[in-house]
């Protein structure tokens, strides 16, 4: 019996580009050199020496702006079909009001890439899994579509593919298929090439610069330095899942 996790990781590894940080810098406008430096060099295997994460500044995230959502839908060609209840949502915008203080803020919600992902805990076949570098993925080849991971995820970050995906909508960035569960991949196909996730790129390109992507395990990365310096929150921190997505200003 072959190990499905290994396979997926190997696929990831095989898909790297020859060009390194410089290529990433030209592909992703608005990305600082510091951020690129914190991304994984293409020729290194996935390892637990990195942990990829996001820092989202809700004070910069504009209410009404959904550039990140648009970018994600475009990146993975997530097309609406039979209505929002069954359409895929890998990322969504949420506006929140603190009832105790009256303060409001806006933020994008997506897979929080937990260190202890309940989705992976409950998955009967191991299709839901956490890569060594912290990215939580679904191996669509062994997902049986039981949807227990969707019951378990505290963030409603996953979508069940409720219908056949038209041939023309199929996308190389992530394999998708009817009857399987899918979610934000933290743009693993980009990360493995040293690039930023599409949502981060869009947020930066938009000028809001509310999202920082980087290596939580590199103390010199921008995300680590920001996290060490300023207060931040993990959503549902009480569950102790240690998500890789941090929020400022909640």
């Amino acid at each position, binding site marked *: 019996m072959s190990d499905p996790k290994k396979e997926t990781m190997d696929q990831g590894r095989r898909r790297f580009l020859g060009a390194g940080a410089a290529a990433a810098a030209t592909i992703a406008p608005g990305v600082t050199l510091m951020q690129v430096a914190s991304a994984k060099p293409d020729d290194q295997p996935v390892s637990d020496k990195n942990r990829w994460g996001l820092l989202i500044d809700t004070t910069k995230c504009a209410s009404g702006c959904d550039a990140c959502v648009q970018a994600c839908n475009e990146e993975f060609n997530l097309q609406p079909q039979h209505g929002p*209840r069954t359409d895929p949502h890998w990322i*969504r915008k949420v506006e929140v009001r603190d009832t105790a203080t009256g303060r409001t803020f806006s933020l994008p919600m997506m897979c929080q890439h937990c260190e202890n992902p309940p989705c992976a805990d409950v998955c009967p076949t*191991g299709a839901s899994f956490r890569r060594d570098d912290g990215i939580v993925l679904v191996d669509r080849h062994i997902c049986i579509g039981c949807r227990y991971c969707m019951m378990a995820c505290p*963030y409603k970050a996953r979508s069940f*593919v409720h219908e056949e995906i038209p041939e023309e909508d199929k996308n190389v960035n992530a394999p998708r298929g009817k009857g399987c569960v899918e979610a934000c991949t933290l743009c693993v196909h980009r990360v493995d090439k040293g690039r930023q996730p599409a949502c981060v790129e869009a947020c930066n390109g938009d000028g809001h610069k509310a999202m920082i992507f980087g290596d939580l395990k590199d103390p010199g990365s921008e995300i680590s330095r920001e996290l060490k310096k300023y207060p931040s929150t993990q959503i*549902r921190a009480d569950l102790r899942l240690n998500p890789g997505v941090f929020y400022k200003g909640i």
Partner: protein
Amino acid sequence: MKKVRYTSIDGRGGFYALLGVLGLFILAGLGAAYYMEHNGHWVTGMDNQTVWGLPHVFAVFLIVAASGALNVASIGTVFGKAPYKPLARLSAVLAVALLVGGLVVLLLDLGRPDRLIVAMTYYNFKSIFAWNIILYTGFMGFVAIYLWTMMDRTVRKYYKLAGFTAFIWRLILTTGTGSIFGFLVGRQGYDAAIMAPMFVVMSFSFGLAIFLLVLMAAYDWTGRPLGEALLMRLKNLLGVFVAGALYFVIVFHLTNLYATEHHDWEKFILMGESVHTKVFWLGQVLLGSLVPLGILYSKAGRSRAWIAVASALVILGGFATMWVTIIGGQSFPLVLFPGMEVVSSGYFDDVAYHTYSPSFPELVLGLGGVAVALIAVVVAVKVLNLLPSSLADADVDPHHKG
């Protein structure tokens, strides 16, 4: 006590008519499953908010009832109660049949039922779901062996051991089923250790109710004698189980009501506007628990018709319980920001609750699972010597005073 004689039933016209009707339900269920799989689940009432729908209500009910149906046999074998022993064969067959019915629904409701082989070969041992696959398979195996030790004199010496193993296994199995929900940390309606023992007690209740109905139907339709004292024993036991299940429901909600963090959830279930509040009070509590208790412990409880009504109500209440647990539990939105409110969302985080209306194919698939369970029992009593020729009191209870 006379020696109990087990005989298969006669296959008259009614028998084949019953087979035919059940067969039609099964065919319809298969058709519904094909329709949903072919089109994708968007044709069902399910969506990305309510990912487990009516088929899961049927499937989990049948699986829970399955382990409970074995109890009659266990009481005879493990706890040594003589009057239950002649019922053990039917109890074991019914248990396996209900489990198969439930599993068929569960399987056909998967996004990829064609990947059954994947589910059987790739195991994530941290998943309680994966454990359940082993528990279900093991249950069928152990109960089959148990049945074999009842029916074959040459392996009679393993009867006690097999019965004990099956009993322990069924407790673990239902603990596993309850834990599917109890282990879900992110949802207000689940995430509670009490779910496991609550499901165990509920299994006692649902399983015995089904057993009583099947037993009375089989003995009525085949014209075999069924003793009054035996029936009184069984209906009293059903009353205890129904009260026990109700006790767990009360404790579960009272504890939630004490914790401020669960108040919104309890308000939603106990006093909300959604259908779940009605299903809880009318279905689970009133019709499923209080009315049967009233029937069973009043003078009406001495009548066979009323015992049948009480059993049917307990089964109805079981479906209501599974509805409230499974659908109601998903209807309450995830609490992403405790103490805050979601003003607007791109994905229904801002609703008071998620709605779900089952589609017709989902209902047909669920009923198909019930039909699978029933047809298995009907065929089994026809081809195997499962039913004692007489369950008259003098024939089953050594202490019965005629």
